[in-house]
């Protein structure tokens, strides 16, 4: 390849990537800009800048309630799925047990099943069993599909845990529960936190499974779906934008902390 060809080859990927990132951000920027739109009923045409949507976000009927419901469902499903999934992840890495292959298959299948099938299946089950759709059925459904993702995330952390550390604890006469509480659990914590965040994000943004199992219970995505037919109020954009900024700050802070930690580790002899 010629000198010029190499030069272009080197920068083509920079140009492409900048364009690609811009493309990925277009609908996000659009959603944020339209959270400041001075709109009356439908938030489609730009009518001028206002802060009213942000300051009076809860005055639009139902938005804040739906948002609160999503937070409540998300926290409950995260707690349940993180506990159940972490226990399974530890067992998978550390213990021998019969039906190991069947167990891994059972954990893999929910991730390979389209959400619409999971949603319809649960709805059919609740219908047959005569369980009315409510917040409870939504939480049960969310916990189910989050478990596998928690297992995959925590499992990687358990596998990277050096067993010598726990052995050292046992050699120093720590009881099994002390070893778990003072060594195993703190070392697994970053993985568990990552899994919990993933579970919360999955639950918070889920629409398909929720739609089949929520009945009259309205989560934030369901609110947006129902409103889509008649026009989304700008307040929904406000909530989505606020969530976006919180998540973004969260990720950037955690990445900066991780980078600082790597630097510290690299500096120490």
């Amino acid at each position, binding site marked *: 390849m010629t000198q010029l060809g190499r030069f272009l080859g080197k920068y083509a990927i920079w140009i492409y990537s900048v364009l690609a990132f811009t493309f990925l951000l277009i609908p996000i920027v659009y959603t944020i800009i339209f959270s400041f739109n001075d709109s009356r009923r439908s938030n489609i045409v730009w009518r001028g800048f206002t802060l009213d949507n942000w300051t009076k976000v809860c005055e639009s009927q139902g938005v804040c309630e739906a948002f609160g419901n999503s937070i409540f469902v998300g926290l409950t499903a995260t707690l349940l799925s993180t506990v159940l999934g972490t226990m399974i992840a530890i067992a998978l890495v550390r213990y021998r047990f019969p039906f190991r292959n069947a167990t891994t298959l059972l954990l893999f299948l929910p991730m390979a099943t389209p959400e619409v099938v999971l949603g319809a299946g649960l709805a*059919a089950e609740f*219908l047959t069993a005569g369980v009315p759709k409510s917040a409870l059925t939504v939480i049960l459904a969310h916990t189910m599909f989050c478990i596998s993702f928690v297992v995959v995330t925590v499992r990687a952390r358990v596998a990277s845990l050096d067993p010598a550390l726990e052995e050292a604890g046992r050699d120093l006469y720590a009881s099994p529960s002390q070893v778990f509480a003072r060594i195993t659990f703190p070392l697994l914590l970053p993985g568990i936190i990552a899994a919990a965040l993933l579970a919360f994000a999955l639950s918070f943004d889920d629409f398909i499974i929720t739609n089949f199992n929520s009945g009259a219970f309205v989560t934030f995505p369901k609110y947006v779906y129902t409103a889509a037919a008649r026009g989304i109020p700008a307040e929904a954009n406000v909530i989505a934008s606020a969530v976006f900024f919180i998540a973004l700050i969260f990720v950037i802070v955690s990445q900066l902390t991780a980078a600082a930690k790597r630097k510290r580790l690299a500096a120490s002899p």
Partner: protein
Amino acid sequence: MAFGAFAGTATTVEPAVRRRSPIALFLLLPGILYLGLFFIAPLFSLVLTSVQAPSEFGDIGVYETAFRWENYTTVLGTYWPHIVRSFGYAAVATLVALLFSFPIAYFIGVTLRRFPLVQALALTLVIAPFFISFLLRTLAWKQLLSDESDFVSFLNTLQLLPEGAHVTGTAFSVIFGLTYNFIPFMTLPIYTSLEKLDLRYVEAGGDLYASPASTFFRVTVPLAAPGIVSGMLLTFIPAAGDYINASRDFLGSTETAMIGNVIEANFLVLQNYPAAAALSLILMAAILILVSIYVKRSGTDDLI
């Protein structure tokens, strides 16, 4: 590690010896029972529901236990275009997402290696769409591609669109939406594979007089294969079952309805539970067959 690649890579240490212990049962049982109750049992409910017959009094939404297996042939006969369309749309979206994502994944994983902070920022940009509601970002595209939008008026000014043609409500906009929404699922696993790519192998290709293209296809791509396989699965499966993008209120129209739309309409609107259940099981079976053939052919058996 197809799906593991998505969650992050594990550093390898000397593995602990796996012991037999009753503790394993205590750790496994609650989660396994939970999945049995809310994943396996619902599948059985679907099987039972799918062969139910309408109530003899003809009430809407009331069915009785029967073994009407012809429900399957009925829904296949009625909805086969939707099934074909779903897999077609999902396949195109997966391929476009792969072509779109590979260069970005390479850029973040290889080009940006020397700049860890920029690399972290670029990764954040890729997952940024996850932080904003799936439905709202799809609606944003609907507005941006609507007939009144600047983009479409620009196309009209240039006379690039046929008279009276729309962008939204077409197969193009649905596939566009599917592609956009699942790009992060494609980019992240490929990035995870490429991030570990040892550049000395690529150099070796050049040293052995391979052209850049053949080095790329015979060294780089095979080394990124685990990420490509999991990225394609993570894109194809949700895309085939999706019904947001193809919905009339979002990027689709009645002519673009996918199997997910049909299942939703039959279950939640028409209350034709047997049809919805039969279609769900057909979708699941088709996906499992496709996935297992694909996984077998790509040689990645260790999925979790």
